C-alpha cells in the first residue's frame, strides 16, 4: 500500500475514522446532540476529500485511477455514489436527532454504525474485484442488521434478526456465484473476468463452461437482488422496514439500494459483457423488473401501515430501476445501452430525494401521533400544513407526476427502454406507475380530505426542518432542471464501459 493508495482511499478511511471518533467521544460526552453534530460536521472531511478526488478524475480529465493493485478504482462513477451516500447520511443525521434522543438509548453507537455502514457503501461503489465486493457488502450489511434491531423491542429485534439471517443466506448465494465465475475465468478482477468471459462465451473455451458462467451469473443476481430488494428476494423488506427504527428504514430504503445498484451496474457492465451474455442477463433483469414492479405495487395497495406501504413501494421502485439494466437486452447500440445506467443513476438521486422527504415527514408525524397507521395521518393538512405538503409532494414524485424528480427519473428510464426497442417494458412501467397512484394518493387523501382526530398542531424541530427542506427542494429542482444531475450521471457512466 503506497501513499497514493491511501490518498485514493481517503474518503472511506475518513469515514471509518469519523465513526471510531464518534464511539470514543460517546464515552466522554454521551449526549445525542453533541454526537450528531460531530458526525454531521465530520462528514465534511470525507466530502472534501471526495471533491479533491473528483478534481483529479472528473470533468475534462475524466479518467479512472486504480488503487491497491487494481482492487479499487476511483472514477466519476464511484464518486457519484460516494456523494450520493454522503448526501443521504448528511441528511439522515440531523433528521434523526429527535428520534434518537427520544427512543434510542445509545446515540454514539447509532451514529457510529450509520457511518460504518456508509463506509461500506462508499467502498462498494469503488470495488472492482469480487472479494473486495463481498467484504464491502458485509461491511454495509452487518451494521444495518444491528441498526434494525436498535429499538430493542420485540418487532425491532425480530427485524434485526431477520435481516441478519436472510442477509447471510443471500451472501452465501452470492459467494457461490462468485466462486463459479472465478472457477471458469480464473480471476476475481472484473476486467480480467470480462476478457475471459468474452473468450469463453465466444466459444473459445471448453463447451461446458458457458452454462457454468450462466449459473454463476444467476446466483450473483440473487445475491445482489437481496440488496436492492427485487422480487423474489424481497421477502425481508416489509418486516424489517416495519420493525426497524424509522430513520434506519429511511436509510435502508435509499442507501442500501443505491449501493446495491452501484455494484450491480459495475459488475454486470464491466465483467459480464458480450453480445449473448448481455442478452441473457438483460432478459433476466427485464423479468425481475416487471415482477418487482407488479408485486410491489399490488402488495402495497393492501397496507394500512405507512412503513409497510413504503416497504412494498421500495420493491416497486427496484423494479423501475432494473429497467435501466434490462435495456441492454434490447437491440440498441452502445450509445443507447448507456441510457439505461445513466437513467439508473439519475433515478437513484431522484428516488433518494423523494423517499427521504417522505420518510422525514413521516418521522415527525408518527413521533407526534404515536402510530404508523395511514389512518393516523387524517387531517394532517390542517395540523401541519407544511409537513403535509412535503409528504404530498414526495408521494407525487414517487408516483412520477411532473414537475417532480420522480417524473423525470421515470421519463429517462422508460425512454431508455423505448430507445432500445423494449417499449413493452416501458409500457409495463407506465401501467405500474398508474396503479401505484392508488396507494400513494391514499396517503394524500387521508391528509387532505379526512377530518383530523385532534386539532393539536404537529411541529418539526429546527434540524428536522432543515433536513426536510433539502430533499423537498431537490425533488422540485430536479423536476424542473433535470440536466443538473443528468449530465453528471451521463458522464459518470462513461467510465463503466467494458474494456476494449
Amino acid at each position, binding site marked *: 500500500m503506497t501513499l497514493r493508495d491511501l490518498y485514493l482511499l481517503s474518503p472511506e478511511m475518513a469515514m471509518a475514522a469519523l465513526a471510531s471518533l464518534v464511539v470514543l467521544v460517546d464515552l466522554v460526552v454521551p449526549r445525542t446532540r453533541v454526537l450528531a453534530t460531530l458526525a454531521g460536521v465530520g462528514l465534511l472531511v470525507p466530502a472534501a476529500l471526495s471533491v479533491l478526488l473528483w478534481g483529479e478524475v472528473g470533468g475534462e480529465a475524466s479518467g479512472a485511477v486504480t488503487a491497491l493493485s487494481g482492487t479499487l478504482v476511483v472514477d466519476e462513477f464511484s464518486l457519484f455514489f460516494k456523494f450520493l451516500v454522503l448526501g443521504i447520511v448528511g441528511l439522515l443525521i440531523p433528521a434523526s436527532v429527535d428520534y434518537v434522543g427520544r427512543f434510542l438509548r445509545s446515540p454514539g453507537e447509532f451514529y457510529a454504525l450509520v457511518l460504518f455502514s456508509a463506509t461500506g457503501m462508499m467502498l462498494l461503489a469503488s470495488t472492482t474485484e469480487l472479494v473486495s465486493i463481498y467484504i464491502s457488502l458485509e461491511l454495509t450489511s452487518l451494521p444495518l442488521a444491528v441498526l434494525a434491531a436498535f429499538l430493542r423491542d420485540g418487532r425491532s429485534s*425480530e427485524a434485526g*434478526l*431477520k435481516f441478519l*439471517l*436472510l442477509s447471510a*443466506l*443471500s451472501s452465501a*448465494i452470492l459467494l457461490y456465484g462468485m466462486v463459479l465465475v472465478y472457477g471458469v475465468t480464473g480471476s476475481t478482477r472484473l476486467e480480467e473476468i470480462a476478457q475471459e468471459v468474452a473468450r469463453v462465451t465466444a466459444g473459445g473455451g471448453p463447451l461446458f463452461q458457458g*452454462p457454468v458462467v*450462466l*449459473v454463476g*451469473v*444467476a*446466483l450473483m*443476481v*440473487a445475491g445482489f*437482488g*437481496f440488496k436492492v430488494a427485487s*422480487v*423474489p*428476494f424481497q*421477502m*425481508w423488506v*416489509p*418486516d424489517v422496514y416495519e420493525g426497524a427504527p424509522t430513520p434506519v428504514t429511511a436509510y435502508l430504503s435509499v442507501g442500501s439500494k443505491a449501493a446495491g445498484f452501484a455494484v450491480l451496474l459495475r459488475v454486470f457492465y464491466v465483467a459480464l459483457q458480450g453480445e449473448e451474455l448481455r442478452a*441473457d442477463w438483460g432478459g*433476466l433483469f427485464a423479468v425481475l423488473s416487471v415482477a418487482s414492479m407488479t*408485486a410491489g*405495487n*399490488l*402488495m402495497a*395497495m*393492501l397496507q394500512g401501515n405507512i412503513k409497510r406501504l413504503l416497504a412494498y413501494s421500495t420493491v416497486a421502485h427496484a423494479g423501475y430501476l432494473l429497467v435501466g439494466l434490462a435495456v441492454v437486452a434490447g437491440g440498441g447500440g452502445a450509445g443507447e445501452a448507456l441510457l439505461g445506467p445513466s437513467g439508473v443513476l439519475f433515478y437513484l438521486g431522484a428516488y433518494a430525494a423523494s423517499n427521504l422527504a417522505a420518510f422525514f415527514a413521516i418521522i415527525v408525524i408518527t413521533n407526534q401521533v404515536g402510530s404508523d397507521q395511514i389512518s393516523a395521518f387524517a387531517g394532517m393538512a390542517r395540523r401541519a400544513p407544511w409537513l403535509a405538503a412535503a409528504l404530498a409532494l414526495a408521494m407525487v414524485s414517487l408516483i412520477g407526476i411532473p414537475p417532480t424528480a420522480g417524473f*423525470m427519473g421515470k*421519463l429517462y428510464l422508460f*425512454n431508455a427502454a*423505448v*430507445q432500445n426497442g423494449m417499449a413493452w417494458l416501458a409500457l409495463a412501467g407506465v401501467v405500474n406507475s398508474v*396503479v401505484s397512484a*392508488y396507494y400513494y394518493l391514499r396517503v394524500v387523501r387521508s391528509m387532505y380530505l379526512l377530518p383530523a382526530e385532534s386539532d393539536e398542531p404537529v411541529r418539526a424541530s429546527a434540524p428536522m426542518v432543515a433536513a426536510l427542506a433539502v430533499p423537498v427542494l431537490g425533488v422540485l429542482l430536479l423536476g424542473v*432542471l*433535470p*440536466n443538473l444531475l*443528468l449530465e453528471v450521471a451521463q458522464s459518470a457512466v462513461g467510465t463503466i464501459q467494458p474494456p476494449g
Partner: protein
Amino acid sequence: MGATIPEAAAWAILFSPLASFLFIALVVRPFLNRRYARLAGYVTVLAVGAALALSLWAAASTLRQGGPVGFAPHRWLTLGELEFRVGVLLDPLTAVMLVVVTGVSLMVQVYSQGYMRGDPGYARYFAFMSLFTASMVGIVLARSILQLYVFWELVGLCSYLLIGFWGDRPAAAAAAKKAFLVTRLGDVGFLLAILYLFSQRAVFLERGLNPLEIPDIHEVAALAKAGAVGGLAITWLALGIFAGAAGKSAQFPLHTWLPDAMEGPTPVSALIHAATMVAAGVFLVARLYPVFEASQDALVVVALVGGFTALFAATMGLVMDDIKRVMAYSTVSQLGYMMLALGIGAPRLAIFHLGMHAFFKALLFLGAGSVNHATGTFDLRSMGGLRRRMPWTYGTFLVAALSLAGVFPLAGFWSKDVILGAAWSSGEPVAPWVFWMVMVTVALTAFYIFRVFFMAFHGASRGSQAEASHGAGGHGGGPHESPAVMVLPMVALAVPAVAAGYVANPLSALGPVGAHWLNEFMASLGGEVAEPDVALAIASQVAALTGIAVAALLYQARARWLAPMGRGLAPLGRLLSRRYYLDELYEGITVGRLFYRGMARFTDWVDREVVDRTVDGIGWLGRNLGRSLLPLQNGQVQVYGVVISFGVLAIVGAYLLLR
C-alpha cells in the same frame, strides 16, 4: 447602456417580475398582509420598472445590431435524438414587444396603487399582476415553441385569476370561467400544431434542425414555401396556430369572452384585455410568420377573419351602455385590424398598430377606471358632465379617443392608415373586401368612441350611483378628479398616444431618427410596406370625422330631427345590443343542448362505466392478487429463506432449460 445586453440581463426581464410574484406570494401575503400590504404594490412597481429598463437596453442592443442578438439555447432535457432547449430569442419583434409590454405594465401598476387602494385582496392582486407580466415577457422572449406555450397557458391562467379577482360576484366568476374555456378552445388548435410539429420531427432532424425551435421552424417553413420540403401540411399547421391566436386575441367566432372579461378590475382590463395578452395572438402569428407565408390559404383565412372581426365587433360597440364593454368591442375590432394586416402580408404594420393600440387603448381604460373611481359606475347612462370635475381624465381621454378614431396626426392615425394603404394596394384577391370592411369600421369606431366621450363627459350630470361597485365614490361632494398616482400614468400614456405614431415611423428623417426607422428595424419580419397615400388618408379622415360628427349630433346636440330615424333603427339596435344573439347561440344551444345533453352525457357515461370500472377493477385485482400473495408474507423467516431459494432455483433452471 453602451454594451450589448448580456443573456443574463435578458433573462432578468423575465425573472424580475417573477421574483416579485414569489416575494409577494411567499413573504408579503402570508406574513405582512395585515400591516404592510402596500409593500406588494411597491415591489411590483420596482420589479416592472427594472424590467422596463432592461427591455429598453435589450431594444437598444437589437437596434444597434440591426437584427437579432444571438444567444445560444440551453439544453433542458434530451430524449433520444430530440433535444428540448430553452433560450432567449431577442430579435426586433421581441424588442418592440418587450418595450410595449413592460412600459404599459409599469403605467398600469402605478395606476393600480391608487385604484386598488384599500381592497382586501391588494397583495393578491399585485402577485397576479407580477406573474402576468412575467408570463407575458416569457411569451415574448421564448425561443422554443414549447417554452412559448408554457407561458401562453400561464397568461391564460393569470387572466382567469384576474377576471375572477372579485370572485364573490357571480358575474365575475362566470366571466372568468368563460374566458378560460373559450380561449382554451383555440388553444387546442395551437397544441395540435405543436404536436404536429413534434410528429414531423424527422423532417427537421434530417436537416440538423429542431422541430420546437422557432428559428428552425422559420427555416423549414421557408423551405416548404420553396417546395424543398414535402410531407408537411403547412396550411393545417398555420391554421392550428391561428386558432390559438384567435382565441387569445378574441377573433370571431371566439370573441365572446372578451366583453365579459370586463368584470375584472379596470387596470387588469387595461393591461391584459386591451394592451398585452389579447395582442399575444397577433404576436404569435407574427412570430411564426414564415409558416403563414408558406400557405396562401392560411393567409386568406387570417385576413378575412381579421377584417370581419374588425367590422363586426365595431357594430356591437355602437350600442353598449357599459363604458368598458364599448371599449372591449373596440379592442376586438382593433385586434381585427392587426390580424387582417397579417393576413394581407404586412406583419410589420400589424406590430406597429399593436404598439400604438396598446398605448391609447390602455389609456382609454385607465380613463374609464378613473371615471368609475369617481362615479362608482360603468353605466354611461348615469354619467355626464364630468368634463369640469375631472379635467385631467377628460383631456387624456379625448387624446386617446382621437387617437383611436385615427384622427391626424395622432398615433392611431399613422398605424391605422398604413394598414388601410396596404389593403388598398395589396394585390391579394381578398384585399378589396377587407379594405371596405376596414373603411366602414373607421367611421363606426369614431362614432362609438365619441358617443362614449359625449355621454360621459358632456351634457348634464345624470346623477352618479355612488353605491355601486367597489370602494370608490362615496367621499362626498360628488365626483372629483382621481389622485395623482392615477393621473400621472394617464398623462404618461397620453404622450405616446399623441406622438408615438409619427416618431416611430416618420416620413422623413427627424433629427437623429431616420425615416421609417421602425419599419426598417423590423424588416426581418418580412412583408411589404406601402407608402402612405394622401388620397386614402383624406378619405379615412372624412370617415372618422363623419363618425365623430354623428356622435356629436346625437349625444351632444341631441338633434331632435334624428329621433324618427332612431326609432326606425330600433330593431337593428336590439340585434346589436343582444350581440347578434351569438352568446345565446353558444351558451343556449351549443353548450346547453349539444354539450351538456349530448357530449357531456356521453363522457359522463364513459367516465362512470369505463374509466371508473377500470379503476375499480385494478383496485379489486390488486387487493385480491395481493391477498393471494399475502400468506407467503407470514413473518416466518424460514418461509422467506425458502422463497429466496426457490427464486434462485427458478432462475438457474430457466437459464439451463431455455438456453
